[in-house]
């Protein structure tokens, strides 16, 4: 994995900020989810790689274990309530607790006109994003409430603020997560749970695929980004996730941290 020389790495921070914490990361078989899982595991968390396919999730869990961390893969389909509930139950069975749930999994973002968007593409976005957030939150709640550091973190997108001319329904699907986070920040504050979002732009397989289709896209994104590069899933996005998962963010709830190198400045 390429790490920009100007980026802080996990080695620059004292390790162990999540020792004894148990974390689930959905969509952790690749991209941003993998980066967050690796970063949190590097800080001592036991991490559940909740991936749709074992072929992608198991190697990530094995790599974390090879590096001295604690991780397992639990095959999870976030578009199915029973699968989400089973993932949370299995996590608590294996580790005895759940402190942090990071819902990152997403699928269905295909460029189209609104009037020509296939219903299946919309439902895939709706179910991985909004429904998945609902089911993850509901299944995790009793365990997060039992923790002294309960955290729900939802991965949204800058498109959830700006709208999208290319994938018009991506924006509402991602916006729903921010509204859920704000609502649950109100609702679960009394339980000591914080609920926040991260809106990242990062080097992912999905973005790499877009670069193959549109060769000028990388240059365009880098040119509009004040920091001049695209984020690294582990160091850049994982670092923000670490903050939100750690004790340092205890007084932060209902917020979205836009982690995109300074591209979106509209807040």
């Amino acid at each position: 994995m390429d790490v920009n020389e100007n980026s802080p790495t996990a080695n620059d921070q004292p390790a162990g900020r999540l020792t004894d914490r148990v974390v689930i990361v959905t969509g952790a078989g690749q991209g941003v989810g993998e980066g967050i899982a690796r970063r949190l595991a590097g800080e001592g968390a036991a991490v559940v790689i909740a991936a749709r396919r074992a072929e992608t999730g198991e190697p990530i869990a094995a790599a974390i274990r090879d590096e001295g961390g604690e991780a397992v893969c639990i095959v999870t389909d976030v578009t199915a309530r029973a699968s989400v509930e089973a993932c949370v139950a299995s996590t608590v069975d294996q580790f005895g607790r759940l402190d942090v749930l990071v819902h990152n999994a997403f699928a269905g973002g295909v460029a189209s006109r609104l009037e020509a968007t296939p219903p299946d593409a919309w439902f895939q976005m709706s179910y991985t994003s909004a429904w998945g957030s609902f089911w993850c939150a509901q299944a995790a709640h009793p365990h997060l409430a039992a923790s002294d550091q309960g955290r729900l973190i939802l991965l949204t997108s800058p498109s959830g603020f700006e709208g999208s001319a290319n994938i018009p329904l991506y924006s509402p699907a991602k916006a729903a997560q921010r509204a859920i986070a704000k609502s649950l920040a109100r609702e679960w504050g009394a339980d000591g749970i914080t609920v926040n979002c991260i809106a990242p732009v990062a080097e992912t397989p999905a973005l790499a695929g877009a670069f193959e289709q549109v060769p000028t896209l990388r240059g365009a994104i880098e040119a509009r980004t004040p920091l001049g590069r695209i984020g690294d899933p582990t160091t850049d996005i994982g670092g923000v996730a670490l903050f939100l998962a750690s004790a340092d963010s205890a007084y932060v709830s209902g917020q979205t941290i836009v982690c995109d190198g300074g591209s979106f400045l509209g807040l």
Partner: protein
Amino acid sequence: MSIEGRHIRIVGQGALAHSLAASLRESGAVITDASDALDAAVFAPWDPSTMVPRPLVELTDEEFGEAWQQTMDAAIAMCVDAREAFAGRAGNIVLTFPTTAFVGGAMYAHWAAAAEGVHLLTKSVARQWGPEGIAVNALAIDPALVLADPVAAGPVSIAQPAVADPDPADALAFLCSPAARKLAGQTLTVDGGLWM
């Protein structure tokens, strides 16, 4: 900003839709379900009889689906139908939602998701259809008009209202008028100045 004689479709069955239709009619608009010569369409499905509070941990799939999925599906269909009715002519689309979209609501995660989804649908559609001459904008309204229990949702702001009567009728008339065609993806918030 005259809407005299403009043909406007209102999508929604609750008190809000009826109230907005009445105000537009008073301003001279023709409220119609017909597709012929449609000038503007307004999405206003929000209704206190369905927007009831529910803790997320007790929320059923049916309740979440009624709020999030059905509202979004209806909003998407409303936009596509309006564009078809405009038939290549200029037109206005206005999507309403409570400011719960901006600030969330305790016991209202399902409806907040729907409201913010509609908000962002406005922006995406404005970006796609603006070049076709379709002005797509939003009207954010006081949650007290549509939530069954706005107190349960929690305050929009700790401030007192700056305007006593947050009637959104005039702002809606503007957004339905030709004068609004220079706006794209914008939201007029008419809630007494609670959310700024």
